């Protein structure tokens, strides 16, 4: 049973790929936003997206004026030649006054802890930490105050981690799914030579082709056919993990389907478990998406906190979220697995 005196109010953490998205998140009730610089130091490295120093300073000012915190994702893994660039980004973020850095690389964690001891650090989902001992290590060695869990744990596994974790735990509530334990994907590196964990994009746009053919709309990644959609069939992002492949004589979604994670129905249980924050995926989307999704999750979290026993997701919430979903459907992902 939920003990109301111990209920922790989970923070709603929303994506901001540009200033318009940040405004939409703040206006519709985000407790925090996460964002990145305009380069490969973050895992949404796309042309025309993200923040430079000037727009980040303005973003922090606007968010803080509305009581919203700003987390900066610096969560890709620098290669030898990029080290100075990545550490400079850490220093820049610290100087601009972000509320937390979201880091994954051990070297960057050490750099941030040594150079900016006052700065709050969150372990990125890209860190792939899935058990409480890993979190304890990051906490003791680097002083992390929160960790974002990969979207591969069942709800019971999340509960076990939260129960024994020395740090606050953030989980993904809605949006794109990753089935590769996040920081450990080699799929697009196989096709393009660039891994998402180092270059900041699952399928870099320069390798993607969309072609209308007599057989349907074809999505190719560096020449590899990922999927072919019939007219009017819902489409997805052109990532290898969500492609349809011929395996053993059958052509199907052999790894994962194009679908979005939606944990709205688990909200009372997530609150009961004691997760500190619920994260919305989608920095690559738009202000319209952020407004629509933040509005629904704000209402839902407030409703679940007010009356957890009576909580059930409103049909109009689910419809609003399904509208913006990849492939126009949703899943509970690993949360619904019986793994313990």
């Amino acid at each position, binding site marked *: 049973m939920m003990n109301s005196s111990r209920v922790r109010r989970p923070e709603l953490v929303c994506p901001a*790929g*540009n*200033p*318009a*998205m940040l405004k939409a998140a703040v206006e519709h009730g985000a407790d925090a936003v996460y964002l990145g610089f305009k380069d490969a130091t973050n895992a949404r490295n*796309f*042309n*025309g*997206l993200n923040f430079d120093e000037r727009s980040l300073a303005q973003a922090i000012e606007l968010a803080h004026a509305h009581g919203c915190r700003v987390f900066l994702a610096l969560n890709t893994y620098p290669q030898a030649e990029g080290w100075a660039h990545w550490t400079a980004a850490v220093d820049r973020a610290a100087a601009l006054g972000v509320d937390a850095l979201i880091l994954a690389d051990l070297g960057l964690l050490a750099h941030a802890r040594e150079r900016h001891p006052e700065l709050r650090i969150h372990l990125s989902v890209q860190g792939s930490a899935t058990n409480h001992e890993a979190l304890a290590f990051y906490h003791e060695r680097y002083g992390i105050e929160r960790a974002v869990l990969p979207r591969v744990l069942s709800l019971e596994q999340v509960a076990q981690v939260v129960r024994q974790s020395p740090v606050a735990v953030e989980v993904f509530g809605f949006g794109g799914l990753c089935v590769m334990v996040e920081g450990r994907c080699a799929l697009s590196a196989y096709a393009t030579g660039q891994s998402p964990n180092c270059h900041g994009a699952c399928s870099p*746009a*320069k390798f*993607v*082709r*969309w*072609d*209308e053919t007599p057989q349907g*709309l074809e999505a190719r990644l560096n020449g590899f056919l990922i999927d072919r*959609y019939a*007219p*009017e*069939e*819902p*489409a*997805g*992002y052109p990532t290898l993990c969500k492609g349809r492949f011929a395996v053993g004589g059958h052509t199907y979604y052999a790894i994962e389907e*194009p679908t979005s994670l939606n944990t709205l129905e688990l909200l009372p249980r997530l609150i009961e478990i004691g997760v500190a924050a619920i994260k919305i995926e989608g920095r*690559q*989307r*738009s*202000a*319209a*998406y952020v407004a*629509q999704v933040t509005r629904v999750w704000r209402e839902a979290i407030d409703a679940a906190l007010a009356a957890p026993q009576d909580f059930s997701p409103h049909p109009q919430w689910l419809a609003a979220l399904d*509208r*913006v*979903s*990849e*492939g*126009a459907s949703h899943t509970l992902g690993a949360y619904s697995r019986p793994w313990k």
Partner: protein
Amino acid sequence: MMKDDRFVIPPALARIVSRLPQTPPAAVLAFALDRLLFPRLPLPELDALLEQPLRIEVSDLGLRLALTLTRRGFRPLPAHVAPRLTLRATTRDFLALLRREEDADTLFFQRRLALSGDTELGLLVKNTLDAIEIELPFLPRPR
């Protein structure tokens, strides 16, 4: 799939418009973009978009508008120039995108926005448009 019957252009109109010369409407679009968009384009993005032949297809109006961006603004292109990027949607969906009422990826997933050609350029156009703050008081509301 979501249908909206409150903002439907009669199909007959598209059949007629598609047979008319496309340069005058392309010039009108270039003029509108010069007023609305050009002064607000951030420099790095402007550089990356320069001299790229673009095509905007408004499917329900039968319009196929070819244009490009120069240092001095948008210019219509002759219809025969091969585009590096083509964007296709209905009038309603283009207006909803400009008004920030719809998300481009949502429309793409639902097959209401089609993109072909250079995907990197497409992403840049999409993200640049979404990042620019423009007020469009005179556009008709699609819903």
